[in-house]
């Protein structure tokens, strides 16, 4: 059992940073603002999986559960604000390309 759980633990330790790397790649290789937010979501999934694995393999999943719920709430709020910004940006610049958004003037 302990060997099996060690293998699983290592598997989670490999998968979660890989998801984070995929998310970073998605953010830096695109100029579409919605695709960037999707990359950010993929990074968050990696963090969720790492937190869950940390709680499970320490024998205290009930302590990590509220932390994951808090993270999900933060994720949704960030997405809501981003959605508002995206709609305003498209109204103003008529484009989703971030390279067109070069004016900070109100």
């Amino acid at each position: 059992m302990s060997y099996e759980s060690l293998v699983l633990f290592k598997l989670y330790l490999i998968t979660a940073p890989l998801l984070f790397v995929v998310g970073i790649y998605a953010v830096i290789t695109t100029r579409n603002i919605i695709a960037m937010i999707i990359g950010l979501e993929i990074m968050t999934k990696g963090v969720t999986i790492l937190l869950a694995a940390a709680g499970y393999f320490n024998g205290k999943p009930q302590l990590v559960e509220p932390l994951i719920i808090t993270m999900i709430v933060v994720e949704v709020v960030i997405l809501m604000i981003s959605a508002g910004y995206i709609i305003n940006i498209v109204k103003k610049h008529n484009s989703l390309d971030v390279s067109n958004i070069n004016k900070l003037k109100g």
Partner: protein
Amino acid sequence: MDLMYIHILLLGLIISFSVIAAVNTRIIKAAILLAFISLLTTLVLFLLKMPLAAIFELSVCAGLITVIFISVISLTNPLTREERAEEKTKMFKRVVFLPVIVLVCGAAFYMLEKSVDFIPVVSDAVSVSAETGMWNTRQIDLAGQIIIILTGVFGVIALFKDNKDDGGGK
């Protein structure tokens, strides 16, 4: 041992879907793939004995976030033909590079974790329920969540405020 194969299958599917979502030029497909990733994360959380977090993940991440994404995509203009052709040429580069990066990083993380000698203590029975933990030991977290939700609400109100001085109002 069978359970281990289920873990491996779920994690493999999550990585594959995230790679496809990252290289996809069609945003709507990427958003739907993200919903699938959330669904698989829910299953992983169930396997890791976190049912409350799994329910949150399913209802909020796979449900609400997908709805928000699809609403935003439908409210914004689709790409023009030229933009789509340009994106497709870029996609080929991404399709080539991302699997290579994933393989290299996976190998690097594997090498790094060879030295890990931590013996996991897997919990068979949960002594304190997550609800008790949340209400009794994580009150500050709850206060933080309330503040964050209020911040989001006021942020959205401020963003969608009809500013008549700016000429945007009707």
